[in-house]
């Protein structure tokens, strides 16, 4: 799924690069893929459509940023929108001026209400409160017993009696007041939203206890039906928010967005396991990434945006062209590449990276990179600026310092000088379209890497970094001349 999606997004990006703004056609294609992703995540169809319409409105006509492909830019906007929707109008639990604060839990059978009630009690206890549980699920056999066992394990008292759910709730509330408990949690029986009698009953419980908070407990593996459930319970009970359970399953949890989308109330708590402590406040960011199911893509987008320091790259690029590229520049470049994590991953992200280059990058071995870095770091600053002074004894010292061999040092230096020669040729090639020249260099580098050890590890990736940096001079830093024909970098509108 992820691979297919990222491939499609990439195709999208290569065909669209030259344009300056996101067009409707770009959006159609990118959002079509996002639609599938959301549906696979169980977001309800109507919610998917409404959500995508909102995204479209948000990004339509946006200028393209220089660091991302159009496909990535759309994904980023989708992700931001998801976080915004999931995190809008957060609910902070406050306590009633006149205790106890009453919390009512409702939901379908099997959603996890009883477990959630106990977990919630433990959470309140951790907040320094004195919770009290009311077991008003008299429907399911042994539900009261289940709550008693769970409550005992966390040292919380449970009230119940074999009368009617409404009487249990009323009496329990009275008992909590008598005992001076400041939070009361009422567990109710699971019920179907279409079961009128049972929905009337839970409404009556709410009326009798006037809860400060009414939470719908919803299962993260729920499918399209989440909207019916959420809407029906909201209509009956005026929900304050949602508690999502079973987040330890491998479901993507689109039901959370569906429910959130139709009731307009926040998700407040999330349950992530069978243990009482597997329960916490809800974090929209995590959920957004999960629903979108593109965690890897998202983290790479983020890294690319954060760490690609265009100034550093552009300055080195300028020197590269003028033939004064030194091993220091090389180290700076290498550092940039490393900051972004795995080479293969980052190459996927870079605009203008060809398949050959990506293959070359994935051939780069982290160990080789480490060795190259160790060798360069074992040189003095003077040596790095002017490798020609490196005689036999210096090379022996460097080999020792980097725990490599003299032949490894020799090989690196030979490759570096060839690389520099190549750059100089290209820089003086009077080629008006430098980006293409850079691309060619990168391709040469890539081919070199495939042939064997022609270029030092990291150089080929460097070529790719250069290509994008030269094509998009951010500050005009260094001696790099601004070129026409590259992607422009207009200020971000938003």
């Amino acid at each position, binding site marked *: 799924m992820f691979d297919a999606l990222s491939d499609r997004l990439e195709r999208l990006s290569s065909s669209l690069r030259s344009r300056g703004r996101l067009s409707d056609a770009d959006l159609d294609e990118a959002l079509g893929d996002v639609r*599938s992703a959301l*549906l*696979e*995540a*169980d977001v*309800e*169809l*109507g*919610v998917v459509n*409404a*959500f995508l319409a909102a995204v479209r409105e948000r990004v339509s006509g946006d200028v393209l940023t220089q660091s991302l492909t159009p496909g990535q830019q759309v994904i980023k906007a989708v992700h931001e*929108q998801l976080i*915004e*929707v999931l995190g*809008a*109008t957060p609910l902070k639990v406050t306590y009633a001026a006149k205790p106890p604060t009453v919390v009512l839990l409702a939901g*379908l*059978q*099997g*959603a*996890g209400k009883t477990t959630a009630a106990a977990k919630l009690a433990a959470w309140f206890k951790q907040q320094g409160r004195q919770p009290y549980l009311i077991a008003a699920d008299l*429907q399911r*056999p*042994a*539900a009261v*017993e*289940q*709550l*008693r*066992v*769970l409550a005992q394990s966390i040292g919380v008292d449970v009230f119940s009696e074999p009368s009617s759910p409404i009487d249990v709730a009323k009496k329990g509330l009275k008992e909590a007041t008598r005992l001076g408990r400041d939070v009361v949690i009422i567990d109710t029986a699971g019920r*179907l*939203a*279409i079961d009128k009698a049972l929905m009337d009953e839970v409404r009556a419980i709410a009326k009798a206890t006037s809860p400060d908070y009414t939470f719908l407990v919803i*299962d993260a*593996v*729920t*499918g*399209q*039906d*989440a*909207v*019916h*459930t959420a809407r029906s319970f909201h209509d009956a009970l005026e929900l304050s928010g949602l508690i999502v359970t*079973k987040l*330890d*399953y*491998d*479901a*993507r949890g*689109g*039901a959370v*967005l569906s429910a*959130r*989308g*139709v*009731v*307009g*109330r926040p998700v407040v708590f999330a349950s992530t396991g*069978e243990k009482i402590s597997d329960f916490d406040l809800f974090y929209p960011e995590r959920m957004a990434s999960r629903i979108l199911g593109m965690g890897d893509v998202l983290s790479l987008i983020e890294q690319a945006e954060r760490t690609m320091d265009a100034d550093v790259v552009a300055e080195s690029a300028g020197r590269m062209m003028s033939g004064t590229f030194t091993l220091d520049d090389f180290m700076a470049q290498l550092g940039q590449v490393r900051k972004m994590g795995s080479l293969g991953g980052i190459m996927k992200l870079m605009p203008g990276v060809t398949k050959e280059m990506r293959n070359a990058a994935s051939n780069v071995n982290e160990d080789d990179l480490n060795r190259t870095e160790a060798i360069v770091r074992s040189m003095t600053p003077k040596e790095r600026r002017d490798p020609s002074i490196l005689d036999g004894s210096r090379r022996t010292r460097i080999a020792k310092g980097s725990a490599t061999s003299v032949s490894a040092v020799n090989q690196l230096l030979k490759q570096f000088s060839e690389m520099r020669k190549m750059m100089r040729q290209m820089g003086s090639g009077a080629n008006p379209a430098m980006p293409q020249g850079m691309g060619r260099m990168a391709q040469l580098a890539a081919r070199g890497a495939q042939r064997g050890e022609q270029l030092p590890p990291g150089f080929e990736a460097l070529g790719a970094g250069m290509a994008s940096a030269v094509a998009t001079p951010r500050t005009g830093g260094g001696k790099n001349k601004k070129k026409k024909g590259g992607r422009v970098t207009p200020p971000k509108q938003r």
Partner: protein
Amino acid sequence: MPDLLVRDSAPMPSLVDNAATLNQRLSSSRGVFERVRSISGASELSSGDLAIVEEVLLRSDVGVTTTNAVLEELKTNGAPDGVTGALREILLNSLGADRSLATTADVDRVPVWLFVGVNGVGKTTTIGKLAKRHLDAGRTVLLAAGDTFRAAAADQLELWATRTGADIVRANEGADPGSVVHDAIGRAFARHVDIVLADTAGRRANSTNLLDELSKVRRVADRSPGQVVETLLVLDATTGQNALSQAREFLAASGVTGIVLTKLDGTARGGIVIAIERDLGIPVKFVGIGEGVDDLIVFEPVDFVDSLLGA
């Protein structure tokens, strides 16, 4: 950004009456859901027709991949006798697996039905209902309370035993589920009980440890004199695409032979079982349609497909 994404989403493309239970749906003689029916009988399908079919399938939790496959089949086959008929045929072809139930074991062995599934799908309730069914069919039944993890799970099963008149073997919470099942089979064998229904703890399908534990319980249950003749995966009809991975993992861990689709009396349609049967060949055998002891019926593909399409 407004809080509400959707104020009034389109009604579930289906039934005349959304609140109809499956029973009502099944007994309804009304025609197929209006929009599908309104599609003309031309063999060339318009993109509008396909969009409606897509919506019906997606909203029933059939899933994107299976929906696309069905749409492809529709396009290839065309719909000379109307889209509804063509769609119905494709879906019924997807539900062609053998649905027979094994209630007997080899000579000198006790047949065991093992119930597996994630938390909260209704395993224990299903066992209670099936106990009644077997008793009604004249078989003696012993329940094995193999869910030793969830608080009061054994109590819940015991209430079902009392309610139906089945025998039960249980142990304390935290006991080894394998040993409970072993004891139950020993007792069933000694007393010539006709069938053992073994409960297991609900477990998520993405935990190797929990699935390994389940494999072990199954091995114990299948050791002579026990013989596992059915391993039934209990699946909640409200479940979305995760049901497919549940089925895949439980199949690998415990050799699932059939599915019990529960909670089909709500508004959820359980369309994911079509994807499961197409991809993994696991047939649905029973359908749960309520909390009452008799609210469990044998799965009928025709009824299911018709209810999916809104007939």
